[in-house]
């Protein structure tokens, strides 16, 4: 059972962060479901914090989706942070798919930051 629900936390300054504690399989099968949640979260909050440490499997479609998320966030001046991708299924798949980066994403305001870089 994959869980893409998120929790909205409002900070003192009114800044809303959506916390995703991603569970289970992050693959093409569930990609659309995740996408819809992400769209909603992006609408609502200024920052999305995704924790991928409990993801059991990730595929290309998911990674593509997350890139799209990052792009959308940047376009709106919002922030996306992806954590917990140092272990588990992430490193191998990221390397295989060639998503690891030294340089930043051209779409980021902070050019040294890429979604996939720690």
């Amino acid at each position, binding site marked *: 059972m994959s869980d893409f629900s998120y929790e909205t936390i409002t900070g003192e300054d009114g800044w809303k962060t959506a916390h995703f504690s991603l569970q289970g399989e992050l693959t093409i099968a569930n990609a659309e479901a995740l996408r819809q949640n*992400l769209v909603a979260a992006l609408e609502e909050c200024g920052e999305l914090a995704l924790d991928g440490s409990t993801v059991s499997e990730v595929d290309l479609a998911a990674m593509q989706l997350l890139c799209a998320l990052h792009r959308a966030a940047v376009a709106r001046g919002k922030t996306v942070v992806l954590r917990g991708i140092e272990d588990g299924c992430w490193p191998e798949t990221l390397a295989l*798919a060639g998503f690891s980066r030294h340089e930043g994403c051209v779409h980021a305001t902070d050019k040294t930051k*890429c979604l996939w870089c720690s």
Partner: protein
Amino acid sequence: MSEQPNDAFREEAYELLTELETALLMLEECPDDMELISRVFRAMHTIKGSGAMFGFDEISAFTHEIETVFDLVRNGEIAVTKEMVDLCLLARDQIKAMLDASAGEARVDETRTEHLVQAFREFLPENKECPAQEQVSQEGVDGGQAQHEPARKSALKTYRIHFKPASDIFANGTNPLNLLRELSDLGEARVVAQVEEIASLENLDPESCQVHWDIILTTAEDKDAIRDVFIFVEDDSEIRIEMIDDGGYFDDEESHKLLGEILVERGDLRPEDLERVLSSRKRLGDLLVEQQLVQPGKVEAAVAEQQAVDRQRQTRQGQEAVSSIRVPADRLDKLVDLVGELVTVQSRLSQTAAGREDALLTSVAEEVERLTEELRDITLNVRMLPIGSTFSKFKRLVRDLSRELGKEIELETSGADTELDKTVIEKLNDPLVHIIRNSIDHGIEMPEVRQVAGKPREGTVHLAAVHSGDSVIIEIRDDGKGLDRDAIRAKAIERGLLSEADDLPDSDLFQLIFAAGFSTAQNVTSVSGRGVGMDVVKRAIDALRGSIQIQSEKGRGTVIRVKIPLTLAIIESLLVKIEGDHYVLPLALVEECIELTRQEVADAHGRDLVRVRDQLVPYLPLRGWFAIEGERPDIEQVVITKVNGHRVGLVVDHVIGEHQTVIKSLGRMYRDVEGISGATILGDGTVALIMDVPHLVQGAELAERNATHAAGVC
């Protein structure tokens, strides 16, 4: 011609056998060295595979038997033992015999083959015997069991691969990641995903693939193997495969691609933009990204490419194997000949230009001279090979011979990378073998004798080669019992080479060993029928225009020094004239030239001696020696030469100057002429004879000795 592939195989096989022997000898010292075990295995495996491919089935099958055993060694199932190495060396000899037989020489002793095979099978643990036998019949072109080792190491090539799948690739059931994984299996891959075409989140259809990739793959496989990975998605995807580094073919070109060049080449950047950005100072990649001219993904991919190619280049440069081409030896000989002719004609050109006072002609002639010199140097170098391979051969000789005689002897070498002309190395082989044999047989004592004498049980023979000026000096040194000068003296007197009253310094005394018939009374084992004695050695060294010197100390050892000029074809000489004829002699032997007046000759009262500073130097009046008619001029020139440590003067009419001599042989008719070793053609077309100075000197000394004997003068 159907013979050629066989010759090619044979040539390669002989080389492999040399490698096999070397590795086996080293393995004997270090039985646990995996690297050496691999070397042995590889050599055997290659011989087996190539043998099968070229139809040398007997060799292939035999090698297979040995390889089977060695495979167990490689897997750590059995250990290397002295018996195994001995057996492998014998097997190597047998393979060589088979090769020789295939070339039409002596027949192979098949019972021996059988024995060896049996002996090898002894090493196999019981249950392996049957599979090993079956394998032999399954031998085919593919070379046997599931060995993953390639028989030959292919060159690694680097490809740039662009893969853009159709957006519905997921729907078709293909996961691009699997394709990327397959590519990684082919070799070292750097994958860079290009994500700029991913739609924004709101508009994204997660089930479509909007990522494409640039991959740099370094692999030994060829383009087709890479294409095969994409075979099922070919029609719907954009796939481009380009080779960007082809295993070093273009390494010597300055084609290191700069990052910007790569991007422009890939169509990811416009040249104008590159120019503009380059004129500012920041790192190119950063700048390009900053100015949104190139996606970081593209920069990333280009950097990956640059690094991959650089790494490949470095690896190749670090590799020991230097690429080379086989050239038939006679083609090289022809080349050297032509260069020789060119040198001759060029000197005529220079002479002609000098006489014309035409500035343009002179400058052109100078340039031709410069180029000719360079061409000459390079061409003569082409045939130079390190002497190391010869030295390695001797290791086997020393090992076998010392075993046979019950002695313990170690062969040490130094200067193995000293280079000599190929023909010189070949001609030196037999003399060196003989000298080493002598050291082992007569020089080094039995272990017990050595111990009693306070020496280490194991004797040492040390081979060294070093460049010295325009010569190479090869030294064979042993710590044996040295030469017995009394015995030699006695023998020399017995043979009439010396009289009782003669008192020669050791270095000269030892030279008498080279006189014909002086060979020692004891017969050297396994030399029967070859008629090789020290006199043959001397003759061989002389033929190479070299010299040989012996030093020895009784009880401590002997040192034999062979000096050979580096090139056979062209030598720096001194051009002299006697009564209208020209002669040349090697400049290396010349120390100085002094005048000799008629008065001085008269003052010497018939003795051919001249005073040079504080020494009296004997001279040889060449006019008399060569029986040249005509009057001696009032003033003559004495060319003082130094041969074997002795100074001897040669009297000529005029000393003209230095000359590049291209040696031409005199031809069969004149082979036995004493004192002349060849001829050369001068710039004006006339012929000059090349003096064989050592011979002249020796002849003169002998003549003098005979004369003094006859006159009864001490």
